[in-house]
């Protein structure tokens, strides 16, 4: 049991990073970035390839991968110059499909659907216990950074963008710049999450970065709280607490995955209907 919990701990940290970064851009900035998981995939593949093929040290690969995700995240903010709301969500969803297609089809680099096995863990963090310490450390630093950010004047300016772009501009806020920075930071963090996942599981394939992961990001934010970093941590922990015990139920393993997704979506629906801000949320998204 202890081994299992240690293993689970790293995954919880990675999913917290996924949801925190999603909340920054969706909950605080009001950009429904459905391509978030695509940025995570870029982080995962970049870090894995940098370390495995190029032999670059873990720390450099990790930061390089996160920086690449952050840069692409910033580029993904460019369409917001012209489009808003649901249209932006569609564009970013398209981005996720493009990333998936590239990962599947660029076989010479990514091995396509076969995925990349044998991704090394960093030296000194090869056991699950030490990797958990690394994951907790990185998650704690990111959490403290993001929590400070959203409680600063900069965070409030992001919330102004979320609530009303026109008024934000009329008050002299450079809305586009704020969106680009938010997407860059969010991309960096989710790239970090992707990289950690790659080195933790030691295998990645395109199918790991698909809609179900997006549902995780969304559910963590919606349950814990829209525009609440602390709530997001709580939301992800609640989700794991509810869904993980299902592994021990006496049902065929093929049903466990879909059933977990079904429960998560039901929970999400109930939250949206009855507590749209989530448990600790400070904002309600337009819908």
């Amino acid at each position, binding site marked *: 049991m202890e081994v299992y919990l240690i293993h689970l701990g790293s995954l919880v940290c990675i999913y917290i990073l996924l949801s925190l970064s999603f909340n920054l851009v969706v909950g605080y900035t009001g950009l429904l970035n459905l391509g978030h998981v695509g940025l995570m995939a870029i982080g995962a593949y970049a870090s894995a390839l940098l370390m495995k093929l190029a032999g670059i040290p873990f720390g450099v690969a990790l930061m390089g991968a996160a920086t690449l995700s952050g840069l692409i995240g910033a580029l993904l903010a460019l369409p917001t110059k012209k489009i808003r709301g649901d249209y932006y969500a569609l564009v970013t969803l398209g981005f996720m499909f493009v990333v998936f297609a590239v990962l599947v089809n660029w076989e010479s680099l990514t091995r396509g659907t076969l995925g990349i096995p044998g991704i090394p863990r960093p030296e000194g963090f090869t056991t699950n216990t030490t990797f958990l310490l690394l994951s907790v450390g990185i998650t704690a630093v990111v959490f403290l950074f993001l929590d400070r950010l959203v409680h600063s*004047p900069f965070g409030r300016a992001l919330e102004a963008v979320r609530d*009303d772009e026109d008024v934000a501009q009329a008050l002299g806020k450079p809305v586009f710049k704020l969106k680009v920075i938010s997407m860059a930071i969010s991309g960096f963090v989710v790239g970090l999450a992707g990289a950690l996942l790659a080195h933790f599981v030691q295998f990645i394939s395109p199918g790991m970065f698909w809609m179900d992961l997006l549902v995780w990001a969304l559910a963590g934010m919606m349950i814990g709280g829209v525009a609440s970093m602390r709530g997001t941590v709580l939301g992800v922990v609640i989700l794991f607490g509810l869904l993980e015990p299902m592994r021990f139920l006496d049902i065929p393993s093929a049903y466990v995955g879909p059933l977990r997704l079904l429960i998560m979506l039901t929970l999400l629906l109930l939250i949206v209907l009855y507590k749209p801000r989530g448990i600790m949320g400070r904002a309600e998204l337009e819908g």
Partner: protein
Amino acid sequence: MLTISHLTKSFGGVKAVDDVSFDVAKNSITALVGPNGAGKTTVFQLVSGLMRADAGAVTFEGQDLLRLAPWRRARVGLSRTFQLSKLFKNLSIEDNLLLALREDDDKLWNMFLRGTGGEAMEKKKIHEMMDFVGLKKDPTTIVTDLSYGQQKLFDLARALLNRHTLLMLDEPVAGVNPILRQQFKDVLRQLKAQGETILLIEHDMDFVRAVADHVVVMDQGRLLAEGSPDRVFRDEKVLEAYLGSI
């Protein structure tokens, strides 16, 4: 201070603003009036940059405004309210007003220097402004909890706190009760006495007569007349436009 020259804006085949030109003099209250659909709010949107003009020029203290992004226009000294109150609806009154007061909150490095809690000086300014406009509410109240009239006062407070040299008010007293209307009147007179320059859209002609130094009348996108309130409101074309719209 503000010069609008041959400003034009069409939506499809409709010319919402058609070759409109007028000036706003420093330390004056200029009222932009006209029947519904005359193009007044479109002029505000074009001047503040929330819509792009098809043709014409807008200069503000010598600067060509139409070349600037909307947020830069705010930073050169335009501050405005909206016809329907637009709020940062998930934030408190204080947070909303701090957003108007602070100009450096888009600087990420500030996060390491200051929290969201307004510093004492800023809070003091906010409380003084709320007192000045007559908004008697706990600043921590979520802004959507304000009544309609209070939201109008809040709009004015926010526009005033935003550093500016020209205040643009879009129907500040539309739908408010007579007592509050009088309150607005007093506040605008005080602002003028303090040297403010105000461009105002308003339908209430008594209100306009009481506060405005100069009146610009628009009808169907075109400039119909301009001059002192007494002269403009005796103008037959103006009377016809208004009576025709009732």
